């Protein structure tokens, strides 16, 4: 009985998987944020992430049930070369910095660039990023929210959230925004995939019909 109900559900709305990558310097709280969001737990005993791990969480965005696959990565930039395998197919990239550590803010640019290079999304300028300023529960602050917002504005209006993984502050909201952005990204690319072959985007002069003709 359940199976039938389930199958009906399957038919009506396809399950969506959103792949989200969390990037940022080491010990800005990537693992903590992920765990706070998925498991609603915080401990200060997380170890430095080696390699990559991910957690999944099911949530409802705009009446759609989606599974968010959140990838946690190693923070040291030397391990970035590993990223390629993990970045591929990402729907949204979460950049995290520590509001008490200016250096973590400074490296945001390089994280963003590196991601765009390695993941090579279809439309780099429109690829959704979300910026999280973590550890707002700590003093003293080194990066004001104004400054972070300015950075976001300069990068095509990236949404910015100030979070505390320790206290669970703003985490839920941030990830909801991440999910929405990821979903929007996926919808746009899926449409693109469905309707046009790849090359049309590049050469506007070529007619779509001609493009598809070539394929056959």
């Amino acid at each position, binding site marked *: 009985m*359940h*199976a039938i*109900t*389930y*199958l009906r*559900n*399957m038919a009506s709305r396809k*399950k969506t998987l959103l792949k989200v990558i969390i990037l940022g310097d*080491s*010990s800005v709280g990537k693992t903590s944020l992920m765990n706070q969001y998925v498991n609603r737990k915080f401990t*200060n*005993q*997380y*170890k*430095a*992430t*080696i*390699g*990559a*791990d*991910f957690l*999944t969480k*099911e949530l*409802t965005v705009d009446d759609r*049930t989606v*599974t968010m*696959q959140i990838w946690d990565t*190693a*923070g*040291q930039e*030397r*391990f970035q*070369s*590993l990223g390629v*395998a*993990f970045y591929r197919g990402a729907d949204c990239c979460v950049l995290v910095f520590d509001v008490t550590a*200016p*250096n973590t803010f*400074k490296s945001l*640019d390089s994280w963003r660039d590196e991601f765009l290079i390695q993941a090579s999304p279809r439309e780099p300028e429109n690829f959704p990023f979300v910026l999280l300023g973590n550890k707002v529960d700590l003093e003293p602050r*080194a*990066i*004001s929210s*104004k*400054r972070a917002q*300015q950075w976001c504005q300069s990068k095509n209006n990236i949404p910015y959230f100030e979070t505390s993984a320790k206290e669970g502050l703003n985490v839920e909201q941030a990830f909801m925004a991440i999910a929405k952005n990821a979903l929007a990204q996926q919808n746009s690319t899926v449409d693109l995939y469905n309707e046009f072959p790849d090359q049309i985007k590049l050469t506007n002069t070529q007619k779509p019909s001609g493009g598809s003709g070539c394929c056959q």
Partner: protein
Amino acid sequence: MAHEKDFKEKLIAAVKKEVKQVMEESVTRKFVHEESGSVTSLCGAVEACLSQGLRRRALGLFKTSSTTALLHKIAKHSPEAARISKRVQELENVDNGNRRSSSSSDSLTKPQLKKHASLSSVIAPLPKYLWIRLALFEKQLAKIIDYLVSNANRYYEKDALVADPDYGTILSSLLVGPCALDYTRMRSLDNFCTDPPADELVQRHRISSAGVGGGSTPPSNRRHPMQPNFRRSLNASSEDTLSSSCCSRSSAHQLGIARDYVESLHQNSRATLLFGKNNVTVMPSNASSNVQEPMPGYLSLHQTAHGLTIKWTPNQLMNGFVDETQDKSVYWDYALHVRLDEIVYVHCHQESDTGGTVILVGQDGVQRPPIHFPKGGHMLAFLSCIETGLLPRGRLDPPLWSQRSSGGGAVGKNNNKRRRPLPALAPDTTDTNTETTRDYVFRIIDNSDHTDMPKRTELMDTRAHLGGSLKTRVQLASTSTSSDSSCKSFSIEQQHSASATADEVCSGGVGTPPVACIRAVCDSMKRQIISRAFYGWLAYCRHLSTVRTHLSGLVNANIVLSDERDEQGITEERWSEVCVDGVVSDYAEVYRLTYFGGIAHSLRKEIWPYLLGHYKFGTTQQQRNELAEETKQAYENTMSEWLAVEAIVRQRDKENQAQAHAKLSTGSAASTSVNDNTTPPPPPHSQQEHHLSNEVFEDELLSDDEHESMDEEEEACLTEAQPVKKTRRNTIKYESGDDENEDENEATVAGVTPIGKYDHDDDGEEAQRSPDNREFCCSNIEHEPVNNGESICDYDNDLVNDTVEQNQEQIFPPDDTCYTEEMKDFIHNVIVTNASVDMSNLGGDESRNVGRASGGGNLDAVTEENNSSLDTCIETHGLASPARSACASPASSNGGVYTQELLETFGLNLHRIEKDVQRCDRNYWYFTEKENLDKLRNVMCTYVWEHLDIGYMQGMCDLVAPLLVIFNEESVTYACFCHLMERMVENFPNGQQMDCHFANMRSLIQILDAEMYELMHQHGDYTHFYFCYRWFLLDFKRELVYADVNATWEVIWAAQQVASQHFVLFIALALLETYRDIILSNGMDFTDIIKFFNEMAERHDSKSVLRLARELVLQLQLLIENK
């Protein structure tokens, strides 16, 4: 009181949240899975509410922390509770019973699988919050809680949540909703979509593969992992058939059965289903007294490579695993599994009212339980299937089907009825003798004698696949890729002729005697088999040579074997045998024993240095003591070097911070005054750019940012403004004094310190900027500690000389125990000093000094300060100018002046190390102590100082930690870590080893586990093998608990000498193999595997994994050896 209320509020809020979650889940999915995480957390929240204020003592419940006892208590009064209580007890009993039966029973008919320690220990047998769970599923939870609330005074304190008139009611009413939901255990598609946790996967696997025995298939007991692939190439057919045929008969009988029973009573790749009928009843002969009448079940006849098998499975087992609460193990005892070649006679009893009974009698004369067929000719169908299945080499005597022509009965009506069964067995009710019971006995005749057995097996195999010959041919073509195309076409041709012959036999060869037909078929098949075997063999040989060339480097050529005693490894007793008078000469024995059995924990401290190469075998105690002393001395010297640098780095950090504060307090005026102070004119733009891009580009990048937003972001700006200014000054000096510096460098190298030249130079350390200088610095550092007195003599600065020595004495008093204390004091002192700097800077009128100090002189100031006695620091630091003049001598610091680059590099590393040390295994007892964390930090910093080119990389702390725990002493740990890193450093991002590992893993899996390899090929990502990344980077340190890490590491180290330089590969393979069935049955892709293994971290059974790894090494060794 308020606190109490808050707490209750929180508890209720938690329940609310979880109820909401569950309700949401039920809405979005239309049902809630029983094992859903939200159910568990809801139960947890309810449990928390119920536990709060429970009068445990009064109720006699203090023994347990759960509320299960409370349930049993109220069961007397509440019928709902009684029901749940009963079920809980049942479940608990079943669970216990299950475990007992699985370990004790060893019936042959029941697929026997060894209990797998790792898996059974991993799985909590019963879910958490069992009773709450059950009550929820039974929809009784709200009622039970209602009862508790209304009788709260009996069970709860007055201020308990349940006793609270408001909260209590809220609690019970909250749960009404969840109690109205339907919960399911169904393994729906949905479950597969939502990434089930590793636990669930392991549990599912346990259920499906061994609902029988309660354990997973132990890899060692499973089929030989290497065989399928080779066999496959040998005759290109389904590997399952072959794996069973190549195993010894009895083991083949036992293995693989579990899966047969659970999933493959149907047609599958390994067996052809010849007959299947449900509701065939059997009176189990070994049934206990509670089975009074024959049980219905599913009878099936399978044809496998090694013959026919009759299976009968009770219906209880056929209905899947929906109802897991019921103990099924007993039914497995009833299930039948009969190999037809063990059967000599088939007795048939045909009765008119019931369908018929077949009794199989074995070679030993023992009767198998009678099989009762329902009405409708099923018995006849069964017998005819047996007869068909026995062909070509075996037959029933007398034949079931008599030839019409020779039978002399009624003439057949059509061709189909040309042959008919013995009249007595015909289901034809028109037969005159229907009323009487007729018995028949058939003898199963096996024409092949036993020497002919293998051939027969192959015949059967081929025959089984003849029907789908197209498929077989495709397989052949694909598996023997190495053989050239002509071979392939030849074999296909062969097959064509074979099948043609077969067709001929079937259709046209009516008149020829059956034996002749069979012979013809056999002949053609024989040819076909021989040719196929030849090409298979050819492919196999080529495959082997590929294996040899690719993988021969992975294992040592000579095979070292173990005896039973070795499995205990190096015990105290054995060590005393090996270690004669403190000299260990028989290193081979030490390696061998370690490899096969590990080292007793108490001996690790002593033996690990040998294994890592720190101690040489054959050294005396005396020599080792000297080595230890040397090591310690060297370590301490190195440490003193970087401690000095650390102090500078810290000072700089503090100053940066302090300046920011100072600027803040003096406002924007301060910054202008500082700008006024910079006497040199602004440098040409191009120069500045060049310089900045080289040295402090981070600062500059930011400063651009800053300048743009200066007005709005003054606060942030000020933090960064300082380094920018410093850069400018440095640039000027650097550019202007370029040639001069060159000269100075040479002079310095020559050992003459050109103090005079530096005197006019504001930034003395600028001279050290070039790479050459950096080297000079380092070499100076290296020599200096060894030859302290001499090198210091080179510097004609007595004061410095004194302070250096003084300093060293202070930091490293000979006494070992108070040394750490001293060290702490030292660090502490520096920090205190910094605090005073903050104060002086914050004074407000110091902006000038701050500005000048920031000009670069501050670095020297610190260097100087570091060497002078610490208590004078405050004075020295109060003013920047004296400090600057004092450090005009570049040689004033211990081992030389440090370049800006060096300071920055080390500073960066230092911060990273600190971050990671702080979070290294804090849950392990050893690292709960600050003191031990400091040791870890020191070792790490020393290593990075000595290997600045490598630098700190995440993961290094994890490698130091186990060593430190064993040695609990820094210098030995450091020395051993250096040895360890010789191998490990190549795994880190700049090395090539990781890619090699991945490539090797790929080859090994291809050879040792074809099925897995195929799965991996399906998901292209697999080639990356990233799930192994952490394994190799840290030698499985994160995958195992500490005790297991120790055991694993020493085996890895010993394995280099005994079996394989790359033993880690085999451990990785062993891990994969341990869970291969789970991975395969769930069709896991790259991400699933990563998640699975991340979740399984620290939950593996290292003993069995290591054992398997050793077996895998041996397999590969044998394979390579076997030409």
